[in-house]
């Protein structure tokens, strides 16, 4: 919302400092995003009287003007054709810097010295016209600064208005806020040449006529109040300078005097209005009704719009002329030929406008305001202001007072406030008087009622519906920064911490400790899979599905790293994946995944700058780390392409192995794993007494025939060795052409917890192991 400080000053009847106003509004809840000085760059321009206009001796299209600037008269060469002797124009003398940074110099044009320039509206930044010099209707004496004669210099605040405050979408509303802090009244500025005899609109309940036009509200839900006025005999033309300046000050483009008048009222009072050319209305009738499905209308922007029965329309006797509260129709638009206008001043239901403009995929100044709720009580004043303004700037007469169709007048809203509740919620003692005074200053009439305050809610504050809203008003005016910030005793939360937090923290510690970086990928992807959940309204095909797994995203991240020639990539991610299980919402599961590729350790000069790459045994280790962290009793199984983790109920919860990827020739193999984090509790660690007796070690190299796994061998060894076996570990594997299968070597550590074990006892155990291995697996000791 653009706010003109000049306009606000006029409403408050005093000069307002822009920076102070900006700071106050920000701290009242309407943050000011910028403070822009406009047209201050016209300071050097003055009013000059053109004494004579003669043809340039050497150029047909140029004239030489004798220009009097109040002190001296100079020659100025001019290319425009509209300059007339005896009239006044904006004149930029030599050395003036015009908008855009153009500095004027005295220079010869076709042999005639030109001293400065007579300016067009565009050169002054005051319009589009570049053909003619700007014509001025002014009594100001030559030499008067242009900005004094035409007060276009202003300061524009860009104010962010929250969705609950439609009242701040106009100057009167912003002025009200400032009036509350400056403690001054708000008064509408007088309109030059305006009649002061505009009658109050005539209230009717269902229908009525104005200027011979019958007005009927058929759709009272969509349009609770509709006011219309007829002004005959207007002369359409440009608005006076002051009105154009006002509109420009808020960034609006002047169009013609009637349209400008309605726009002025929009920006001053937040009342959108529409002016119809009375002669272009089909029949002497206005009907406000629901659209019929299949109806169409061509709106002012030239677009044909398809209507539905959920929309409210303004119709004449024959057809739809406007989409209520959104946009007028092209048929009855005000043009240069218009002489009689019908002025519409209505209240449309916010929800109706919202669904309509959403369905039509359009938003206008009017719909934006109706959607947030305009001041239904302020309509009669807004309409009278508009009529006065039109008559002042475009002439014309009202044949009879305006019509006000208001089938079910709304009751004045009011809310009770308990001063004790105000103090309770805000945490500071606040007197009843202080509360009352704050509310009154903000425009809420207050009357005492037992130990409460009875507060009337003005029509411009549709957001205020209950006590707490008024408590906010009190706090807001007092200033949030005025409240202390002191800690008071508190009770601990009854809500337990999510156990996932600790589970994820364990994984995060483990993997960052192992040299992996925590990744974070978007959870929307382009590829589905049969049970991927689809987003109904994706931004593009690339994010049409919720991710089904983490490894796909991590693989893409690795490819991106490869693309910037990063060979060593180590990432892990913990996040939610989604699955379509046929229900309205996807099933959500938390998973952990990791990918590694490239050097297993940083290359070091002691190893001649070479380090081995990650291999399958590294990813198995990472996978085991994750499985142990989330399911201490869990074991992983070897599969054809890697490993998997299966829970006791048989469901596969995780997988590890080599990954397919778009891999450059220089990159290493990519390995990864992914695992559901599940809901297991962290393991409780029980202390095991440290051994006090010496161990006896035995190495055992075995020949494993094809098909016999290390896990199977270990099972038999443990079984056969009994309680004396304290540790068991593979330390070598050998494959040679001379043997079928392979040789795997284990180190066995025997220990008796209560005594020193004798060698013979270890040997006896070993013999049992060998016997058992031969019998159960056909595994024998490798011959030296």
């Amino acid at each position, binding site marked *: 919302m653009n706010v003109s400080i000049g306009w606000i000053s006029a409403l408050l009847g005093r000069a307002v400092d822009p920076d102070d106003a900006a700071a106050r509004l*920000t701290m009242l*809840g309407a943050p000011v995003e910028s403070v822009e000085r406009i047209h201050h760059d016209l300071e050097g321009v003055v009013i000059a009287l053109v004494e004579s206009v003669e043809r340039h001796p050497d150029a047909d299209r140029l004239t030489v003007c004798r220009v009097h600037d109040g002190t001296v008269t100079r020659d100025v060469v001019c290319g425009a054709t509209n300059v007339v002797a005896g009239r006044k124009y904006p004149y930029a003398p030599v050395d003036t810097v015009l908008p855009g940074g153009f500095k004027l110099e005295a220079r010869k044009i076709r042999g005639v010295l030109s001293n400065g320039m007579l300016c067009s509206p565009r050169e002054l930044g005051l319009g589009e016209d570049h053909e003619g010099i700007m014509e001025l209707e002014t009594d100001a004496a030559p030499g008067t600064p242009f900005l004094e004669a035409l007060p276009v210099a202003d300061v524009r605040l860009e104010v962010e208005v*929250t*969705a609950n*405050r439609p009242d701040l979408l106009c100057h009167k509303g912003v002025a009200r806020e400032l009036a509350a802090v400056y403690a001054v009244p708000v008064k509408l500025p007088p309109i030059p040449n305006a009649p002061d005899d505009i009658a109050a609109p005539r209230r009717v309940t269902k229908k009525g006529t104005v200027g011979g036009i019958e007005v009927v509200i058929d759709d009272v839900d969509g349009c609770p109040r509709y006011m219309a006025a007829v002004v005959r005999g207007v002369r359409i033309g440009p608005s006076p300078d002051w009105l154009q300046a006002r509109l420009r000050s808020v960034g609006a483009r002047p169009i013609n005097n009637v349209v400008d008048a309605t726009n002025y009222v929009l920006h001053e009072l937040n009342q959108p209005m529409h002016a119809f050319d009375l002669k272009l209305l089909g029949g002497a009738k206005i009907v406000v009704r629901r659209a019929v499905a299949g109806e169409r209308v061509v709106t002012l922007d030239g677009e044909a719009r398809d209507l539905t029965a959920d929309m409210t329309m303004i119709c004449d006797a024959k057809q739809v002329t406007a989409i209520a509260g959104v946009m007028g129709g092209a048929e009855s638009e005000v043009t240069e030929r218009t002489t009689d206008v019908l002025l519409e001043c209505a209240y449309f239901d916010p929800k109706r406008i*919202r669904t309509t403009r959403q369905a039509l995929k359009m938003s206008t100044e009017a719909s934006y305001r109706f*959607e947030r709720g305009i001041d239904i009580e302020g309509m009669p004043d807004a309409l009278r202001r508009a009529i006065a303004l039109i008559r002042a700037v475009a002439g014309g007469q009202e044949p009879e007072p305006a019509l006000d169709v208001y089938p079910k007048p709304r009751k004045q809203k009011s809310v009770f406030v308990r001063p004790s509740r105000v103090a*309770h*919620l*805000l*945490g*500071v003692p606040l007197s009843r008087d202080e509360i009352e005074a704050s509310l009154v200053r903000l425009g809420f009439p207050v009357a005492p009622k037992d130990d409460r305050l009875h507060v009337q809610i003005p029509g411009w504050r549709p957001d205020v519906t209950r006590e*707490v*809203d008024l*408590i906010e008003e009190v*706090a807001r005016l007092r200033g*949030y*920064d005025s*409240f202390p*910030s*002191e*800690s*008071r005793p*508190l*009770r601990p*939360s*009854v*809500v*337990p*911490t999510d156990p996932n937090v600790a589970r994820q923290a364990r994984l*995060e510690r483990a*993997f*960052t400790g*192992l*040299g*992996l*970086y*925590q*990744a*974070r990928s*978007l*959870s*929307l992807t382009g590829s589905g899979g049969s049970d991927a*959940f689809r*987003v*109904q*309204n*994706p931004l593009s095909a690339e994010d049409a599905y919720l991710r089904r797994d983490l490894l796909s995203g991590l693989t893409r*991240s690795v490819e*991106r790293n490869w693309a*910037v020639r990063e060979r*060593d990539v*180590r*990432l892990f991610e913990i996040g939610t994946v*989604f699955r379509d299980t046929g229900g*309205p*919402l*996807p099933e959500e599961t938390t998973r952990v995944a990791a990918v590694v590729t490239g050097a297993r350790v*940083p290359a*070091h000069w002691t190893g001649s700058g070479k380090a081995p790459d990650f291999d399958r045994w590294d990813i198995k280790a990472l996978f085991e780390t994750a499985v142990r962290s989330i399911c201490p009793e869990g074991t992983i199984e070897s599969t054809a392409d890697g490993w998997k983790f299966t829970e006791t109920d048989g469901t596969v919860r995780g997988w590890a192995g080599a990954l397919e990827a778009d891999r450059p020739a220089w990159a290493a193999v990519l390995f990864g794993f992914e695992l559901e984090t599940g809901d297991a509790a962290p393991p409780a660690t029980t202390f095991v007494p440290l051994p006090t007796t010496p161990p006896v070690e035995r190495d055992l190299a075995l020949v494993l025939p094809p098909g016999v796994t290390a896990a199977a061998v270990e099972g038999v060894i443990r079984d056969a060795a009994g309680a004396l076996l304290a540790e068991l570990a593979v330390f070598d594997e050998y494959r040679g052409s001379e043997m079928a299968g392979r040789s795997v070597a284990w180190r066995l550590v025997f220990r008796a917890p209560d005594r020193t074990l004798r060698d013979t006892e270890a040997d006896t155990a070993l013999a049992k192991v060998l016997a058992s291995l031969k019998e159960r697996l056909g595994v024998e000791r490798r011959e030296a």
Partner: protein
Amino acid sequence: MTTPPHAQEELDLIAQTVDRVSTADAAVLAELRTEVLGRKAGKLTLILRSLGSLPPEQRRLLGARANQIKQALETAIAERERVLQDDTRRTVDVDGTMPARHAWRGARHPVLAVVDEICEIFKELGFTRVSGPEAETEDYNFTKLNMPLDHPAADEHDTFYLGPGALLRTHTSPVQARVMEQYQPPIRIVVPGRVYRRDAFDPSHSPVFEQIEGLAVDEGISFVDFKAGIDYFVKRFFSPDTVVRFRPSFFPFTEPSAEVDVQCQMCKGSGCATCKQTGYLEIMGAGMVHPAVFENCGIDPERYTGYAFGMGPDRITMLRHGIPDIRLLFENDMRFLSQFVS
């Protein structure tokens, strides 16, 4: 072989060489060793060898002395050799400026580290950490939070829909409602999590980002407690001298509502590009829980009051580290992530 004429004096001289050992360098040490202990012509070796021809009395006396000296000398030489060897390792052969042998170092994602840091600070104020589903219903995401879809305030939440009434949560606030339906106060929770807005991926927007919601509900929690809680967090997270500003604002689920600004960390309030010349940076939306939200969740709004807040760890991380583009927080570029090793 005869007894040296003055064996006693000779031994006295040899004993003195022990003192020279402690300052000898490697060459001198080798010389000394040969001179005194040399197997063929070492002075002490010769004396010891000659002992056999002496009368028993003299042999015993001289022998004891000679062996004592030999032992002392050998100990001193061994000690000196050790010292010299250490010196050699330090100063002669090894260049200590050569690079060390490191293991790979990993790191938390900067945004998720910030999330943890924020939650830890609120833990000091008695807040527990909870979570909720990312796929939600309109009811929890909007309606229960006093945020009807037919109100323009809903426009700020451009939503990804999953089906009729089903969506990807646009904020972590639905968890407020879920927790309040399940527990009666005192409730103090922080809720970090992923949220979704239908925004194209560009330098300052991401369709997916992190949010942290907070909620404190109990008897007698007032606006003053709210300010104190937020103030405590800001000063702990940024620095004790951080200037905090509370500004009225509008959120459907809080009343009174506030936007919390901190003085710009870049320019210290004088105005710069980061804070768009305002001197302040918005870091969270907050306020007193709206009584309608309590009513929707089965909590008595007359008996209980409370405050709620929401903030964006992505933005806070970007401010803290001077990261210009939010997409860097999702690309998992090793050159980026490795900058956050702590």
